[in-house]
């Protein structure tokens, strides 16, 4: 008898899931609709998907190994065997570009994996507690933002020693203030709302309020911002490796490929041109997607289109 009742309850609970979440479902449907309605966002999404597929399945897609040298086949022009030609060590450029997608995405993901939690932690602390904690964190952020990003990343990268790992650390150190500021701003505006006051009146601890009430709202704002920054991260990393202060050979890094290919610009134009085009395309894709997501998440635009 009891089990029957429980069963019925459970079935009701399942059946009413759609009803209880109807606003979220319609919200999600609208988001999908808006993305599909915006051709530029779709193009961006497609570029990112292709990049991701290239990165994950590189060993199966790439026709050749990205680092093995074939000195008898140096600087071959694009042909059927090597669609984008070969570089100064006889390596297939197409294969190196395919493997390079993995390097670029790895940089983006690791930088954000450092900066999002760091920014949230510092921003929440600054916004929620205020006072001298806020003052110290935000002034430090101001100081870090007073350097042009590439210059600071170059300086940190050089001091640590040029390598792909240090490039990621350096870029992460230049980007955290953006996220800390955003998280702080969100926290400040949420903190004063009535529902937080109600929580506090109920005796909820600071920690619980931060984690369960403020954090979720911050995360969505920061993710929108992060998609806008992804292209920039790739561009800065490429700039650093182009200057010789980032990834080192034989890493199939796009910026590095342009850098070494520079010497062959005139007679073997394909060596620096194709990897550079890959950078442009990847950054372009991320920017399109970022723009699209920003527009879609903007409540003004959303209501305007309904």
């Amino acid at each position, binding site marked *: 008898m009891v089990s029957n009742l429980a069963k019925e309850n459970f079935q009701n609970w399942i059946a009413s899931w759609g009803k209880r979440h109807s606003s979220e479902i319609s919200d999600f449907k609208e988001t999908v609709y808006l993305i599909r309605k915006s051709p530029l966002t779709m193009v961006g999404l497609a570029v990112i998907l292709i990049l991701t597929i290239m990165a994950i399945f590189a060993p199966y897609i790439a026709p050749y190994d990205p680092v093995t040298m074939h000195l008898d086949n140096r600087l071959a022009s694009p042909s059927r065997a090597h669609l984008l030609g070969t570089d100064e060590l006889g390596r297939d450029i197409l294969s190196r570009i395919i493997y390079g997608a993995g390097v670029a995405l790895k940089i983006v993901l690791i930088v954000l994996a450092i900066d999002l939690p760091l920014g949230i932690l510092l921003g929440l602390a600054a916004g929620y507690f205020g006072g001298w904690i806020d003052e110290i964190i935000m002034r430090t952020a101001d100081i870090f933002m007073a350097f*042009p990003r590439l210059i600071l990343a170059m300086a940190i990268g050089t001091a640590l020693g040029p390598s792909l790992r240090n490039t990621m650390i350096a870029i992460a150190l230049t980007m955290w203030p953006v996220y800390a500021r955003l998280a702080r701003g969100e926290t400040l505006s949420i903190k004063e709302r009535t529902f937080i006051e109600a929580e506090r009146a109920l005796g909820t601890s600071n920690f619980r309020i931060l984690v369960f009430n403020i954090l979720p709202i911050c995360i969505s704002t920061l993710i929108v911002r992060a998609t806008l920054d992804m292209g920039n991260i790739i561009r800065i990393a490429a700039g650093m490796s182009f200057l010789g202060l980032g990834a080192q050979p034989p890493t199939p890094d796009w910026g590095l490929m342009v850098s070494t290919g520079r010497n062959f610009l005139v007679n073997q134009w394909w060596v620096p041109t194709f990897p550079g085009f890959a950078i442009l395309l990847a950054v372009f894709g991320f920017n399109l997607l970022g723009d699209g997501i920003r527009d879609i998440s903007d409540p003004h635009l959303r209501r305007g289109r309904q």
Partner: protein
Amino acid sequence: MVKYVIKRLILFVIVIFGVVTITFFISHVIPADPVGAILGENAPQELVEKMERQLGLDLPLGQQYTRYLKGLINWNFGISLRTQKQVSEDLRVYFPATIELALLALLIAIIFGISIGIISAVKRNQWPDNASRVFSLVGISMPAFWLGLLFILILYYHLGLIPAGGRLSPSISSPPMVSGLYLLDSLIAGQFRTFWDALYHLLGPALVLGWIQTAYICRVTRSSMLEVLNEEYIRTARVKGLKEKVVIFKHAFRNASIPVLTMIGISFGYMLEGSVLTETVFGYPGLGRYAVNSFLSLDLNAVIGSVTLIAICYALSNLIVDLLYAALDPRIKY
């Protein structure tokens, strides 16, 4: 307003102090091995010690820091190990070259960015708008060094429209130093051939930097204009029977121009960064290339000098943007 200005100035001082301290940390506390880079890894111990003494690297960190601050106040960074000259003297030569480049690029970016942005907003969703949106998105996605290489390949090797690099042709001597900006100095001295030659050398890098910044300014102009064009008073102006030109320039653009001005200020800061890549590609002897070369040869004093100067300029341009913003928009109260 006065209170805001004072607050902002105090922040500026704090930021500069912080910048200087971070630069010290980066150069003295976490460095790769600068002495090893100069002398090679197998240098004899005595030589290494002598070099360390010369650079002051053997002192305790606190003393190094005070020595470093004292040097900064006198704008004395010591001698560059790469060029064997005073770093401050090097900076005096290379810095104006970059300012000249940045100003020319900014001029290009302002002219094209604003006009394309306005056209784009007025012809919203028609083909000029779509074309300009793609153009500016490509622009902000463009790696500056790669665009520079394409320019060199096409404009230098194939068309011969731009020179190989440098600030002046070898046959032309630099104009008498007044501001350090060759364009300005050559006009002051009345040397028109030098003027054209300097402009000719600036063209390539200025177009690369300029295009990328055009993209940013164009985007901001477009979105700001779109916002204003939707306002009621624009409709009123049109209903009144004013000419479309008057409506767009006098009523709309004036009110849309504050974000654009902010963006122009920010652009100037970006250019200090962009100059690093552009100057390296074009072989243009400016601050950016000087910085890169000092980084690559771990030339400590030159690194500190160039990073400090770049950061101060950047912070200064941010300060000006903030103050201008507060002064221009009567709705903003502090």
